[in-house]
């Protein structure tokens, strides 16, 4: 068993505030891992450390086999990242966005044109090659952004609320793309506020106040908390914290 992500007691402090408090997570290659938590629980801070954008205060994290602290360049070359709002350039066409990101990730012109054609064909976007990305409906934008995040064939892809505001049919198509990527061996690390999507993950963790309060398969977590849905598990774990923190 190889680990795509190996996090040991990872910690980040901002002054006296402990945003991420000694979390440990192992994600296997090809797994779809759901990283859940309330707003302000520390998810974004943790992800920033995992993609090499923020230095940990303590602890260690290896992503795609490299240390995020000492080998962040190597990490970044092997991962993809997609955020909810900003991933592609609205003022560039579909083709131009692919060329831009292909170039940034050091693909050759041949690779860009072959993989770009595959990508656009796979999304049935052939007719929209020269459309400005800003004119695409949100769901298509997000599917395109995900495909672009996979263009350099990363070992691990981080998706930060990829389906927020997306219609229910496209949201489900997006998850089929996630499954397909995982089936090809890409490890998927995803956050979401849709609790039904949490059920689609192989395993998930729930962060509360900087710590990981629960981790397991959806079935394990529901059994552990005697709850019918992950939504219920989430509410039970996160509600006391939300009340106390006043966020």
């Amino acid at each position, binding site marked *: 068993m190889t680990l795509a992500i190996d996090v040991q007691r990872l910690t980040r402090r901002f002054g006296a505030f402990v945003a991420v408090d000694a979390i440990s997570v192992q994600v296997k290659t090809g797994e779809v891992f759901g990283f859940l938590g309330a*707003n*302000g629980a520390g998810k974004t801070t943790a992800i920033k450390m995992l993609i090499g954008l923020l230095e940990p205060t303590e602890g260690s994290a290896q992503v795609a086999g490299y240390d995020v602290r000492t080998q962040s360049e190597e990490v970044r070359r092997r991962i993809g990242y997609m955020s909810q709002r900003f991933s592609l350039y609205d003022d560039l066409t579909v083709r131009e966005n692919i060329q831009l990101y292909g170039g940034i990730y050091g693909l050759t012109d041949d690779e860009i044109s072959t993989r770009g054609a595959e990508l656009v064909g796979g999304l*049935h976007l052939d007719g929209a090659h020269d459309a400005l990305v800003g004119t695409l*409906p949100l769901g298509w934008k997000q599917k395109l952004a995900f495909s672009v995040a996979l263009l350099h064939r990363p070992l691990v892809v981080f998706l930060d609320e990829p389906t927020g505001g997306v219609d*229910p*049919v496209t949201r*489900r198509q997006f998850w089929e793309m996630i499954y397909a990527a995982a089936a090809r061996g890409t490890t998927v690390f995803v956050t979401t506020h849709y609790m039904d999507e949490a059920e689609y993950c192989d395993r998930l963790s729930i962060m509360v106040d900087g710590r990981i309060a629960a981790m397991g398969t959806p079935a394990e977590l529901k059994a552990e908390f005697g709850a019918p849905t992950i939504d219920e598990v989430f509410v039970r774990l996160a509600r006391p914290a*939300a009340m106390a923190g006043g966020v």
Partner: protein
Amino acid sequence: MSDTGPVVLHEVRKTFGATVALESVSLTVRPGELFGLVGPDGGGKTTLFRILATLLVPDSGTATVLGRDVVRDLWDIRSRVGYMPGRFSLYPDLSVEENLRFFASVFGTSLERGYDLIKPIYQQIEPFRDRRAGQLSGGMKQKLALSCALVHRPDLLLLDEPTTGVDAVSRREFWDLLDTLQASGLTIVVSTPYMDEADRCDRVALMQQGRVLAIDAPSAIGALFPRPLFAVRGRPRTALLDALRALPTAASVHPFGEAFHYSDTRTALAPAQIAQDVLDALRARNLDGVDVTTIAPGIEDAFMALMGDAPGVPVGVPA
């Protein structure tokens, strides 16, 4: 009947260049109602709110708010409506209290006169009253924005996606707050992309690509789903999904949490018979723990059926 009510829209259309944001939308909100506009981004919800808040003029059709015309009587409307836009729109360099006092003074009132109405919300952020609004957490910003929209005691509250990007727990708390406000007699129109939140409204309009797909009580919306519906469980999930889609009589198959929702083209057949047929077909595929149960369709099931299971297709793309 259709020309009374706090909000009345009649065949409202709004375009931006070649984009049709609203396509002949008609709806009526009743006094004291908690009315939801439910649908994904690009549905037209924000355009509709901007028309109701008198910030946009419709291309055609009529809209009245609290009995006044949104084009002719905009100043009357503005003083009686509280509007919370989707994007944070307070002054980040002013403190919490300064923002509130500013909005109160713009509407010719004071924080003190509006205090009892906003108290249940404002109390939660009052300990931070000297903090700059730009430095608040997301949840606190939301509460401040709601307080500012309420401080002049409006008769109608317009909330554009107040819970987008908000976690499941905070979302529940926000809807509890809306219940409290509604109990004080306020009419509330609120939009959301989360289908499960529709259940918290008295009535909802489902919106998709500028059109209203349906308007009804949440409990009645599910009944618009045109066929018997089944929840199917089993492992492994991907094999189960493939097997369901491969059934020659499959009408729709969608993942729903840990289950798949399945409907069948043989609508004349008894649901129990369909369930048995599907079960037999799946058992022949070596799937574990297969279970097929008849269920009542929910809002998301109805929404997907009403949108024709076909999401928006970009221009120039063959459907």
